């Protein structure tokens, strides 16, 4: 079980309100991703849940048990740190067994659980090595192993993949998702990478300056961003935001259109000149300077062979336009 409820949680460091007040419910078994730009308070929020920071005010419950001021060890949570935080002087076996040892488990039980965890994580051949002798991905798996042997009510991940190279990141992302599917334990995952958020999450919490901008499934956030911040943050490349007369014509302060929802047409639409074109093979990303709508990013099919300086006409696909009011909130 791992239902976590935060009520009007506030965290201040001295004068600075990092999290000015926030309510959040994380259901049992959910994979929740906290995503936001650097300094948005997502890591702080995770550390508050872990108990590594004290709440300035507000309450926190895990499975209806009040844990607002409980020390980290008593919360039944396990955390995987960005730097992995493995114990360098212990072998992989001892690293994974450490929480069991601290909990007073018998050597036989420790051995049994370590062996089981090592099997799940493909670490069986590395149990007697030191962390210093492992690659980044293996260290990551040891850190996860140390977390799973405790059978926590929830896992906390603090940007666990940011120290890995791109290829390994994709593999580990899948492994963590698979782990969640087999364990069915609540997982809270902090990242600044919206791709990780979109691919892994059941529920994404978009944070900005300590406030929750929107909570929802990846597709909800993609299709119905609550405001311009979420609209700009979720989706890659970023959504085009257009103000001025075009927006006013739609009865909004700003309109948004995703690069993949802009079509290249022969007639009508907005005329513009191609500035930059990036050919990825599968896709072509174009930066087009238009008269009416300013600079727009377009995601065109890979066959489109437009070059710098070419004239092009763009039109938004019907029904894919997002409208935002004065304060940036979706209409």
């Amino acid at each position, binding site marked *: 079980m791992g239902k976590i409820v935060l009520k009007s949680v506030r965290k201040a460091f001295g004068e600075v309100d990092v999290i000015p007040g926030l309510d959040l419910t994380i259901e049992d078994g959910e994979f929740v991703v906290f995503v936001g730009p650097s300094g948005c308070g997502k890591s702080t929020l995770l550390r508050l849940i872990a108990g590594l920071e004290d709440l300035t005010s507000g309450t926190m419950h895990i499975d209806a048990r009040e844990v607002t001021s409980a020390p980290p060890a008593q919360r039944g949570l396990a*955390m995987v740190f960005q730097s992995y*935080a493995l*114990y360098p*002087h212990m072998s992989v076996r001892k690293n994974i067994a450490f929480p069991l040892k601290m909990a007073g488990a018998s050597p036989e039980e420790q051995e049994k659980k370590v062996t089981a965890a090592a099997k799940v994580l493909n670490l069986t051949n590395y149990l007697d090595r030191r962390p210093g002798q492992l690659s980044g991905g293996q260290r990551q798996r040891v850190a996860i192993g140390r977390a799973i042997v405790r059978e926590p009510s929830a896992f906390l991940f603090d940007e666990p993949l940011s120290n890995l190279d791109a290829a390994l990141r994709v593999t580990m992302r899948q492994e963590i998702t698979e782990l969640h599917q087999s364990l069915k334990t609540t997982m809270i995952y902090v990242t600044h990478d919206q791709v990780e958020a979109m691919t892994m999450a059941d529920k994404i919490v978009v944070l900005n300056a300590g406030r929750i901008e929107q909570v929802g499934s990846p597709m909800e956030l993609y299709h119905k961003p609550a405001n311009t911040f979420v609209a700009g943050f979720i989706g890659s490349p970023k959504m085009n935001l257009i103000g001025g007369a075009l927006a006013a014509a739609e009865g909004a302060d700003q309109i948004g259109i995703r690069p993949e929802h802009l079509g290249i047409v022969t007639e009508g639409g907005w005329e513009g000149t191609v500035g930059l074109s990036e050919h990825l093979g599968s896709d072509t990303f174009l930066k087009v300077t238009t008269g009416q709508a300013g600079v727009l990013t377009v995601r065109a099919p890979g066959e489109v062979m437009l070059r710098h300086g070419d004239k092009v006409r763009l039109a938004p696909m019907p029904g894919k336009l997002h409208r935002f009011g004065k304060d940036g909130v979706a209409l």
Partner: protein
Amino acid sequence: MSTQSTRFAARLMVAPSVLVLLVWMIVPLGLTIWYSFRIFRLLSPERTGWTYRNYTWFFNAPDFWLALVNTLLLVGGVLIITVILGTLIALLIDQPVHGQGALRILVIAPFFVMPPVAASIWENLFMHPQNGLFAALSRGLGYEPILFLEDYPMASVIGIVSWEWLPFATLILLTALQSLSSEQLEAAEMDGAGALNRFRYIILPHMTRAITVVILIQTIFLLGIFGEIFTTTQGGPGSASTTLPYMIFKQAIVAKDIGRAAAGGIIAVILANLVAIVLMRGIGKNLDA
């Protein structure tokens, strides 16, 4: 990267300094060995002939074995006190407090006091049976003042030397402590390790290399402690606080017997090497990465 020729060039470049250092070491050692087998008393005109009695005199001297034990006691005692207290103080001043910088300078300050000065301060301001602070404290509590240098000479010397070397140990151990990543401690905390277990399983293993360095460096200096004894107890009462270096000093400067002093010096060199071998066998592996 290194080819045959660059390696040869490198050897050629360091050769002069190696040569100088070798001469630097071999000449005094050779001379000492040479004198240690000579009859050479400054107060006597007969200075010829070879003898092994300089050595046998030491082994038969009633206070030689005491001096040997005292030397080891001094080294061991100071090491134990400075490493344990140094670790505790380092843990303490690693905590975030106001005036941390000033506090650290205060902790390190005793190291800058010259050994004879430190010993004089302790002898006259703290341990003096009439004027000392400790005597005043004892009297205040209604006890007779303790005669530190008369009744517990070796322990007093160990105390003084520990006070001098504690800052060094603290400083090295503090830097080791500061290089421990806070995430490791937080991970241990999440793993359910209490403060004591965190110290035992995370902090202490992290500090072993620094502790090894402290032990090795201090041993080198502690084996030769002389000034503190000379200033306070003069090796006494009797020879209760005589160490090997002090005994050599007495033979060389008081008895003016260069031959015997040289023999004592060679015995000290052998002792230092024995201690070094024991230490490197025991804890030297901690220095490997």
